[in-house]
């Protein structure tokens, strides 16, 4: 790699050629205020003008997020001209912004507010028209508020990068420009997957999850028996809400906090994940044996299920009929757990803590219920759990480590833990399928072929004397070619794992925001490494478990013995399986 010489604030540096001024400055230890740009080039339109600097060889000030460095370039970040220009840029962005900051749920994570503080934009210098307010809160997952949108285009770039043909775009022009689904439709009337990737990059409060904290409060007030379960990926990221380094596992503290918040029982969705594996592995083996529809595709990710329903309704038979783990766990809590504890199912309120916004939509699906009772009553994101803990006066960082409740549906294995990362469901399923077909545990336990963050991973395994081709994809852009092959009848695979969010649930749309400028103690390449750091927290928890295969979960075994019969039994089908809707309309 060629190095070139530049000067920043008069200091000489050698940096890699081809970088933008902003990237080079970060590597040299400077943090130029910036707003619209995200993760070196994922979104770099240079539209917000917050990162203006002086650079020799350029006419006027340049947007450092898009302007490339050159040999001998001298850059001035702190010149009066640059400082003033950056402040003016922020003042202009604020001039038509809906500044109800203390009511805004992005408060604390807002990059516009941060940029205002950084650049010293304190007064309403430009007073004029405000952007009209359109608030879309018709779907259960995401709120869009145009009055807080700064038209940076990050959400558009992320939606497209993750899912190929994104549903977000710029429309109209000039002052009437809005970012939204075509026709400024609401998300429910457009083929939005509700994955929340847009939420995870929005610098302001224009895109946020729909909060369900009030629902949980109401359930407590009404004297319900409130049971909480937490998804695997939550423990790998919740600590970030309390200033911990990315990748710090906080399982014990999370459980301690939930117990102090008054939940009757604190369970791990990993139990549901183990149950999913039992059902899914059995379903797969049956499909292979009985010439059923193959390849079979996992169905844990509600964003992916939405995508399949919108774009591949002809391939829905390829989806496993298994409910997602937290729905399975909810169904078991409201039947088996209710029965064993003598509690009426209608008095139980199940809360799921999920790294996901699409789960909020999923829990409202009418097919995910039993006897008219929803399997899960409320879904909170990892961020919302952070809010819940903060308002309760608990000092999270000082909590002791405590254990999940262990009765009935409390035990879990390492196979359940790794569900939170791309390839994890596949690996967990393979551990059990191997046992069923070979009659012994897989020696290495870990199937490392399906680990890592490539968009598509493939492997060929020999199981039960047969070659089995498998694939793992995350992000719908990566899944599309695989699905096109299935549609064309030429897919080489037997089993496929698909997750909606690139990287899997550790990078889900409900996870704590990763904003380099708000995280000065993280590495400068944190946007490239945070998924792996969170994933490692899960893989190390898997390694610490004595039980690492779903079929060895003693309470799952007991559940089958006492209640369900066997995997894919009639009762299991009634409670743990679902069906899909092939008639969803993309644009209403």
């Amino acid at each position: 790699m060629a190095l070139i010489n530049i000067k920043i604030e008069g200091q000489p540096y050698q940096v890699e050629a081809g970088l933008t001024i902003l990237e080079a400055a970060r590597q040299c230890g400077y943090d130029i205020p910036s707003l619209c740009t995200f993760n070196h080039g994922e979104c770099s339109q240079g539209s917000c003008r917050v990162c203006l600097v002086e650079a020799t060889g350029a006419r006027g000030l340049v947007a450092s997020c898009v302007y490339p460095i050159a040999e001998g370039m001298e850059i001035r970040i702190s010149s009066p001209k640059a400082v003033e220009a950056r402040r003016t840029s922020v003042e202009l962005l604020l001039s038509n912004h809906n500044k109800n900051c203390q009511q805004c749920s992005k408060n604390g994570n807002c990059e516009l507010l941060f940029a205002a503080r950084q650049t010293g934009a304190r007064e309403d210098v430009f007073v004029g028209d405000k952007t009209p307010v359109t608030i879309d809160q018709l779907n259960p997952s995401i709120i869009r508020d145009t009055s807080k949108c700064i038209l940076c285009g990050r959400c558009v770039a992320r939606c497209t990068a993750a899912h190929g043909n994104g549903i977000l775009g710029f429309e109209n022009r000039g002052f009437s420009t809005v970012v939204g689904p075509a026709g400024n439709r609401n998300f429910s009337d457009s083929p939005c997957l509700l994955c929340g990737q847009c939420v995870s990059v929005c610098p302001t409060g224009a895109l946020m999850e729909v909060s369900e904290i009030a629902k949980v409060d109401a359930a407590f007030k009404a004297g319900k028996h409130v049971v909480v379960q937490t998804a695997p990926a939550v423990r790998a990221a919740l600590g970030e809400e309390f200033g911990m380094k990315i990748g710090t596992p906080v399982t014990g503290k999370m459980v301690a906090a939930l117990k102090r918040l008054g939940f009757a029982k604190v369970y791990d969705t990993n139990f549901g994940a183990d149950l999913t594996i039992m059902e899914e592995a059995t379903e797969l083996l049956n499909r292979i044996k009985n010439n059923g529809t193959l390849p079979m595709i996992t169905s844990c990710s509600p964003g992916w299920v939405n995508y399949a329903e919108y774009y591949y309704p002809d391939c829905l038979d390829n989806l496993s009929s298994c409910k997602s783990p937290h729905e399975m766990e909810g169904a078991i809590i409201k039947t088996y757990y209710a029965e064993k504890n003598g509690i009426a199912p209608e008095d139980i309120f199940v809360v799921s803590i999920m790294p996901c916004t699409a789960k909020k939509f999923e829990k409202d699906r009418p097919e995910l219920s039993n006897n008219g009772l929803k399997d899960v009553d409320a879904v909170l994101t990892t961020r919302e759990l952070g809010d819940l803990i903060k308002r309760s006066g608990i000092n999270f960082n000082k909590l002791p480590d405590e254990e999940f409740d262990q009765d009935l549906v409390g035990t879990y294995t390492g196979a359940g833990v790794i569900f939170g990362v791309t390839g994890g469901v596949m690996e967990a399923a393979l551990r059990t399928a191997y046992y069923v077909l070979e009659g012994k545990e897989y020696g290495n336990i870990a199937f490392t072929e399906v680990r890592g963050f490539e968009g598509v991973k493939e492997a060929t395994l020999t199981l039960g004397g047969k070659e089995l081709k498998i694939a793992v994809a995350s992000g719908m852009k990566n899944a599309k070619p695989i699905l096109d092959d299935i549609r064309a009848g030429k897919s080489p695979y037997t089993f496929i794992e698909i997750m909606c969010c690139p990287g899997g649930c550790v990078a889900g749309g409900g996870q704590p925001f990763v904003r380099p400028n708000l995280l000065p103690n993280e590495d400068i390449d944190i946007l490239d490494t945070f998924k792996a750091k969170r994933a490692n927290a899960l893989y190390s928890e898997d390694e610490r478990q004595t039980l690492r295969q779903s079929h060895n979960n003693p309470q799952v075994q007991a559940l089958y013995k006492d209640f369900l019969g066997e995997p894919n039994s009639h009762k299991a089908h009634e409670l743990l399986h679902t069906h899909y809707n092939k008639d969803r309309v993309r644009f209403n």
Partner: protein
Amino acid sequence: MAKINEAAMKKINDICDRYINEKTPLMMILSDIQKEYGYIPIEVQEIVSERTGISVAEIYGVVTFYSFFSLKPKGKYIIGCCLGTACYVKGAQQIIDKFSEILKVGPGETTEDGLFTIDALRCIGACGIAPAVTINGTVYPKMTVDQVAGVIEQYRSMEA
């Protein structure tokens, strides 16, 4: 999607075929559809999206960015009122307001009978005859507010 009949579907696909191998086919496709049908509703944008691989959101953005494209059918007679600088200082705003008042539709809108659409144009390069109005290509130079009713009547009587 049900709203598009087979003939239109074929026509739109034919238009897509014409340009599909171009490097950037979108503007050409949209422009031909606009010429053919006078508007580009979202159902048609979906077909173009499927053919070109460009997202509906992006196509919608292009359609709403350029005033040449329209999401709704336009009237038989398109009244283009120039609001460029020269026309504006010569009273173009009063003229477009008069058209709106008589036809009971605002700029960009179409009368219920489908006869007239009022378009607010930026400079059409006819500053010498400001304020200028064009109706389906016919130019009305140095318009006055008093002439507006007569011009509308002239077109209405052609239809009667």
